[in-house]
C-alpha cells in the first residue's frame, strides 16, 4: 500500500496485517508515516496504490463512515469533541438511541455512554459538559467514543500522550480485555515501554517504509530506536568550534511553566547554534515562546547578555535583540494581505519614521538589500507576500529579524513545509550568520536536521530537558535514546 502527498511520498509500499485477538503496535519518528497509515485505515485518506483486504476480500473505505460500518474506529491523538455538550452526548454523538417520533432517548443515551466510559474510568460524570473536564479526561472520553461504536478493530493514535500513569494502566487493562475478547488493535506511541508491555507485534516505519517487524518478547528499546532512526549518518566537519572561550549571551535556569515544561536550563554562546530536538508535545515551542515573552514563566530565571531578562510582551524581547520565528508560518508568521516589503520591515518600521510619516522609499531600499543578502526570489517588494513560495516566505520572515539587527534568534521549525533546496539554503545561511556572531536556537523535530546544523543539541521530552550533547558526538540513535531515557 502506498500514499503520495503531492511530491512527498508519505507511505511507500507498506504491507502489514492484523489478526483477531492481536495488538499490533506501529512505531516510528514524526513524519515516518504512522498518521497517514492510520488515516487510511479509518477512511480519511485513500491509498494511491495498493489495497486493504479483510478476510481475503478487498475493503474499500471512501469515507470515515465506510470505516465505521466496516467495524473500524479510531481514537485520534487530537481531542475532537463538542465542548458545550455533555460527556454522554459526545460519546454517542450521531448515534444517540432514539425513541418514538425520532426524539433522542436520553435515558438510554446516558446509560449506554456510562457503560462505555466505565470500561476506562469511573471518575468522569457523564452529565458534565466536556469543557469542564481536564485534558486527560477529554482524551478518555474521546477513546470511549471509539469504544461506543462497537468496532472490532480499534485504532489508538498516541492515546497516552495526555494521560497520567494510573489512567494509562486502566486503558491498557481495557485494551487487553478487548483483545482477549477477539478484538484487533492498532496502537501507536512514542513511549516504547508501553509498546513492549502491550503489543503482540511491532512494525517500525521510517520515511514511509516498513523497515522492521519485531517480536516484543525478543526485542529491546535499543533495537527499536535503532530501526526508527536508521543507520547513523556522517556528521560534517567544521562545526563545534570552541564555544568555551565565547561569552554566554543567553542563560536560562530552572525555567518552568506547569504542564508545558519544567526546570529547563541551558547556556547559549555567542556564535553558537544550539539545536533543541524534541517531538511535538515535548514543550520546545512553549519554551521558545516563553523566553520571547509570549507567556510568562512560573519559575526560573533568564539572563540576556549578562543582564537579568524577563519579557512581558514580545516587544520587550525584540527591543533587547532577542527574537522568535514561529512554527506556524501561516497562522503566526506572515501578514497575508500585506506586501513583501511591509512583511519584512514590520518590526523595524520605526527606523523609517519621519516627522511626516513613514518613508516607504527608504524602507523598500533596505528591504531590497536583505532580499539580495538572504537570496529571496521575489517579483517586486510591493507584491503581496502570498505570491511567494513557502520557502521564500520563510526567508522573508527570517530577513525580518535580520533587518531588525537582532542578536539572538529562536527559530521554531524554520524549515517546516518547504522544499529541500530552500531548506538547504536556509540552513547554510544560518551557519553563516552564526559565524558572524549571531546566536541561534534551532528547534526541530527532525533529528537529522538538528544534527546537520547545530553545534550542540538539547534534547527535550515531555517538558523536560534530557541532556545536552555536542552535535559532533551525537547520532540520531543516541538522541532518540536520550529522549526516551
Amino acid at each position, binding site marked *: 500500500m502506498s500514499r503520495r502527498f503531492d511530491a512527498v511520498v508519505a507511505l511507500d509500499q507498506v504491507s502489514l496485517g492484523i489478526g483477531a485477538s492481536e495488538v499490533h503496535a506501529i512505531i516510528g519518528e514524526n513524519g515516518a508515516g504512522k498518521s497517514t497509515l492510520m488515516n487510511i485505515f479509518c477512511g480519511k485518506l485513500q491509498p494511491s496504490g495498493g489495497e486493504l483486504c479483510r478476510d481475503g476480500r478487498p475493503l474499500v473505505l471512501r469515507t470515515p463512515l465506510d470505516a465505521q460500518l466496516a467495524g473500524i474506529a479510531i481514537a485520534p491523538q487530537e481531542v475532537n469533541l463538542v465542548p458545550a455538550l455533555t460527556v454522554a452526548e459526545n460519546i454517542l454523538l450521531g448515534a444517540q438511541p432514539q425513541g418514538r417520533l425520532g426524539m433522542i432517548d436520553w435515558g438510554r443515551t446516558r446509560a449506554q455512554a456510562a457503560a462505555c466510559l466505565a470500561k476506562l474510568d469511573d471518575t468522569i460524570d457523564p452529565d458534565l459538559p466536556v469543557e469542564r473536564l481536564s485534558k486527560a479526561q477529554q482524551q478518555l472520553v474521546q477513546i470511549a467514543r471509539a469504544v461506543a461504536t462497537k468496532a472490532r478493530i480499534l485504532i489508538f493514535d498516541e492515546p497516552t500522550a495526555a494521560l497520567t500513569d494510573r489512567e494509562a494502566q486502566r486503558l491498557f487493562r481495557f485494551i487487553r480485555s478487548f483483545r482477549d475478547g477477539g478484538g484487533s488493535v492498532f496502537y501507536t506511541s512514542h513511549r516504547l515501554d508501553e509498546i513492549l508491555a502491550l503489543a503482540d507485534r511491532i512494525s517500525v516505519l521510517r520515511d514511509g517504509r516498513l523497515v522492521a517487524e519485531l517480536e516484543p518478547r525478543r526485542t529491546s528499546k535499543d533495537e527499536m530506536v535503532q530501526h526508527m532512526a536508521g543507520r547513523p549518518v556522517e556528521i560534517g566537519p567544521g562545526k563545534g568550534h570552541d564555544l568555551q572561550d565565547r561569552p554566554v549571551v543567553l542563560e536560562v535556569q530552572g525555567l518552568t511553566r506547569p504542564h508545558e515544561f519544567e526546570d529547563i536550563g541551558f547556556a547559549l554562546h555567542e556564535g553558537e547554534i544550539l539545536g533543541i530536538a524534541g517531538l511535538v508535545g515535548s514543550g520546545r515551542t512553549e519554551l521558545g515562546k516563553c523566553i*520571547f515573552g*509570549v507567556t510568562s514563566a512560573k519559575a526560573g530565571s533568564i539572563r540576556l547578555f549578562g543582564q537579568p531578562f524577563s519579557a512581558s*510582551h*514580545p*516587544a520587550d*524581547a*525584540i*527591543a533587547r535583540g532577542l527574537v*522568535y520565528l*514561529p512554527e506556524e508560518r501561516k*497562522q*503566526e*508568521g*506572515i*501578514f*497575508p*494581505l*500585506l*506586501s*513583501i*516589503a*511591509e512583511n519584512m*520591515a*514590520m*518590526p523595524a*518600521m*520605526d527606523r523609517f*519614521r519621519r516627522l*511626516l*510619516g*513613514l518613508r*516607504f*522609499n527608504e*524602507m*523598500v531600499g533596505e*528591504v531590497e538589500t536583505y532580499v539580495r543578502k538572504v537570496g529571496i526570489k521575489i517579483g*517586486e*517588494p*510591493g*507584491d*503581496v507576500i502570498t505570491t511567494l513560495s513557502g520557502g521564500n516566505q520563510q526567508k522573508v520572515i527570517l530577513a*525580518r529579524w535580520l533587518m531588525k539587527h537582532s542578536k539572538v534568534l529562536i527559530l521554531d521549525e524554520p524549515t517546516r513545509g518547504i522544499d529541500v533546496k530552500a531548506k538547504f539554503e536556509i540552513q547554510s545561511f544560518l551557519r553563516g550568520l552564526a559565524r558572524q556572531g549571531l546566536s541561534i536556537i534551532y528547534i526541530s523535530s527532525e533529528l537529522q536536521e538538528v544534527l546537520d546544523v547545530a553545534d550542540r543539541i538539547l534534547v527535550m521530552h515531555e517538558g523536560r530537558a534530557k541532556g545536552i550533547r555536542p552535535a559532533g558526538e551525537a547520532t540520531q540513535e543516541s538522541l532518540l535514546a536520550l529522549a526516551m531515557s
Partner: protein
Amino acid sequence: MTHEITGTAGSRPRRAGPAEFVRRFRQWEASGILIALIVLVVALSLAAPNFLSQYNLSVVARQASFVGLVALGQTLVLLMGGIDLSVGAAAGLSAIVGSLLLTALGIHPYLALPLTMLFGLALGCINGFFVAKLRLNPFIVTLASWEVFAGLTLVITKGAPIRPLGEDFRVFGQGSLFGVPVPVLIFLSAGLILAYVLARTRFGRNIYAVGGNREAASLVGIRVWRIEFLVFGLAGMFAALAGMLYASRMDAGQPSVGEGWLMGAITAAILGGTSLRGGQGSIVGTILGALLMAVLANGIVLLNVSGYWERVIIGLVVLIAILVDLWRRR
C-alpha cells in the same frame, strides 16, 4: 491614493502606461464603487436636470457627511477585524451631552465641540477596554454598550429635545465656506487625515497588521491591545463629532440623533471595499460609499420614486457591490 491599496504599500512607481493603470485600478478595493458612483451621477444628471445644481449637490454632500464621519471610525474598527455596533448610540449620547454643555453650562461652542469629542473618545475607550484588555467579543460588547448609550440618552432627556443651542453653534452644521457646507469640509478633511494616517504612519500600518493577522502582529512586537483600545476610542470620537454636527444642523439635541447611522456606516464601509474579516479596505472607499448612498437617496427623491423604496435599493446595491468584489478577486 496608491498607498490606499493595502497590499502594495512599498511599491515603487513602475513605468506608467495605460495597462499598468488599469491593473492598479482593478486591484484597488474601491474601484467598483468609484465606477458605480460615476455611472449613477451621470445617469441622474441626465434624468433629473436639477441634480447638478449647486444647492442640490451641497444637500447631497451634507447628507453624506454625518453618516460618513461615523463610517470613518467604523472603517478603522473593521480594518482591525472588529466591529462597533454602538457608534449610532454614542453619537446620540454625545450630542445630548454636548447640547447640555452648551445650554446648561453655557460653554463656548468652540470649546464644547472638542470637549464632546473627548467624551465620545471616552465612550469608545469603554468598548476598547472590554475588547482589548478583557478580550471579549466586540460584537457582544458593543451590542451591550449600544443599549446602555441609547438608554442613557433617554434617561437624560426624558425623550424631549434640548433646544435652542445658540446662534454661535449653528455654524458647524449650517454654515458654509466658498459654497461648501461646513460638515462636508470637516468630513473630507477628517477623511484625508485618516487616509494619510492609515497609509503613512506606524499606527496606521499596525491597524492593517492586526486586522490581517493578530497572532503575527503580536509576535513582531506590536502591542495589539493598545491599537484596539485606541481604535475603538477613535470610533467613539468620530461618532461624537457627527452627532454634534447634526445637532448644530438641527439646532437641537434630539434624543433620536444617530438612529440608523450604525447600518449606514457599516454599509458605506462595505460598499467601499472594506472587508468584515479585517485587514483590507480604505478610507477613500468609505468616503465614496457614503457619497453613493447619499446620491441614491437623493435620486429617489428627484425621480419622484416613493421614499419607501430607498432601503430596498440600498440593499440591492450592497448585494451588487459584493458580487462585483467577488469578480474583482477572480
